[in-house]
């Protein structure tokens, strides 16, 4: 119920943060909203000697739009769900953020934390994959850009090194796109049993111009089924095309029997959600 002892730092600028990360490396962990980290500390499933709270760094908290949507990692997910710019420019992200946990958790949890924790059940990794987002990563040696599809390596494992900081999320696929986050839960928990993020744009002739898909909790980490995306491009979506796309989608999934249900039952539900989702988005566009 109560965390083990740790030392706490709350730098108010990126340089200060870089220094601390260089100093403490793997013995340290960044605390953003804390809604993944603090429960782990409380249950004593982990013990971390140096906790670095980044909430005082103002440069990590912004939402801008200049040809691309740019979001700071410390923006709370509740803010993501209700922010007007995000709502206008990126329906998928706003929709997914509104479906994370509950209002209190969204008031603390951050977009960067959800991405960097890379819990396979977290919602935003799949959304980032569907949006083809790019992450600006900073450390004391400089900055680099990592594409979302290169970012998520495995459960709780990302391309970030121990001294790296996610400093900016860039989303270019906004104009003319529409998307939605289809999240399936149990009756009582707000974690995804699985979820599908879809972001789509159409050509004038009603064929798919571009589509991004991300899958939550259908594999050891969030997955981008590129084969499905490629298959759907330049096609009109009907039952046959959607059904064929689903068959391809299954290749990216690792579905097993578990406490939530049998493989067969889950596959059936997933198929329904995916096909209805594709059609719904297609029709809105």
């Amino acid at each position, binding site marked *: *119920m*109560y*965390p*083990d*002892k*740790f*030392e*706490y730092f*709350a730098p108010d600028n990126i340089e200060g943060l870089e220094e601390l990360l260089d100093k403490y490396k793997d013995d340290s962990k960044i*605390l953003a909203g*804390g*809604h993944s980290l*603090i*429960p782990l*500390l*409380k*249950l004593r499933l982990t013990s971390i000697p140096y*906790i670095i*709270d980044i*909430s005082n760094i103002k440069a990590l908290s912004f939402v801008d739009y200049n040809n691309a949507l740019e979001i700071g990692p410390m923006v709370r997910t*509740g803010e993501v769900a209700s922010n007007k710019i995000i709502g206008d420019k990126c329906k998928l992200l706003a929709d997914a953020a509104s479906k994370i*946990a*509950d*209002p*209190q*958790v969204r*008031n*603390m949890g951050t977009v960067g934390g959800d991405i960097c924790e890379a819990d396979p059940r977290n919602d935003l990794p799949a959304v980032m994959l569907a949006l083809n987002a790019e992450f600006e990563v900073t450390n004391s040696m400089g900055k680099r850009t990592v594409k979302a599809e290169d970012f998520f390596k495995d459960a709780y494992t990302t391309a970030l090194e121990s001294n790296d900081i996610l400093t900016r999320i860039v989303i270019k696929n906004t104009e003319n796109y529409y998307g939605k986050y289809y999240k399936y839960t149990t009756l009582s928990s*707000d974690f995804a049993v699985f979820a599908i993020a879809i972001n789509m744009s159409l050509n004038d002739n009603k064929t798919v111009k571009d589509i991004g898909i991300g899958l939550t909790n259908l594999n050891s980490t969030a997955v981008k089924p590129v084969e499905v995306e490629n298959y759907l491009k330049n096609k009109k979506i009907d039952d046959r095309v959607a059904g064929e796309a689903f068959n391809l989608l299954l290749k990216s999934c690792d579905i097993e029997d578990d406490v939530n249900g049998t493989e067969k039952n889950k596959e059936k539900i997933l198929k329904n959600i995916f096909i209805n989702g594709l059609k719904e988005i297609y029709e809105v566009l």
Partner: protein
Amino acid sequence: MMVNINVNGREYKKDIEPRMLLVSFLRDELNLTGTHIGCDTSNCGACTVLMDGKSVKSCTVLAAQANNHEITTIESSDPKLDVIKQSFVEENGLQCGFCTPGMIMQTFYILENSEDADEEYIKKNLRGNLCRCTGYKSIIDSVKKAEEKVKGEINVSK
């Protein structure tokens, strides 16, 4: 470490361990025992308080994170909070009373952040608060009643 936390309008400077949770700060350091602990996984919402006007689960916030921030708890004497409390009494929006402070604080947040919270909105925004006694019906009625009263007062003052 030293923290300076404003609770219900009063500044508290305390030397605490960094690992101290905000809920422990309130309950053990300040003796404000109205904020309750019902779980250890951020599910139940019995520990809900407002931080800078936003509802948070104080069992999953370090007191250190609240340093230099404003916390509002069930013990606050905010007049709008009183209206909500009275509505819970009138609608019998509680039985054992244990989840009640968290429910009321979340209601406070709902009413501060929505002009027109309908029943669906209220239910969705109470998802982070568990009650085992009431089946939520009287709680939802209490929120609706509080909303009517708050709106009524705004109209009167206009």
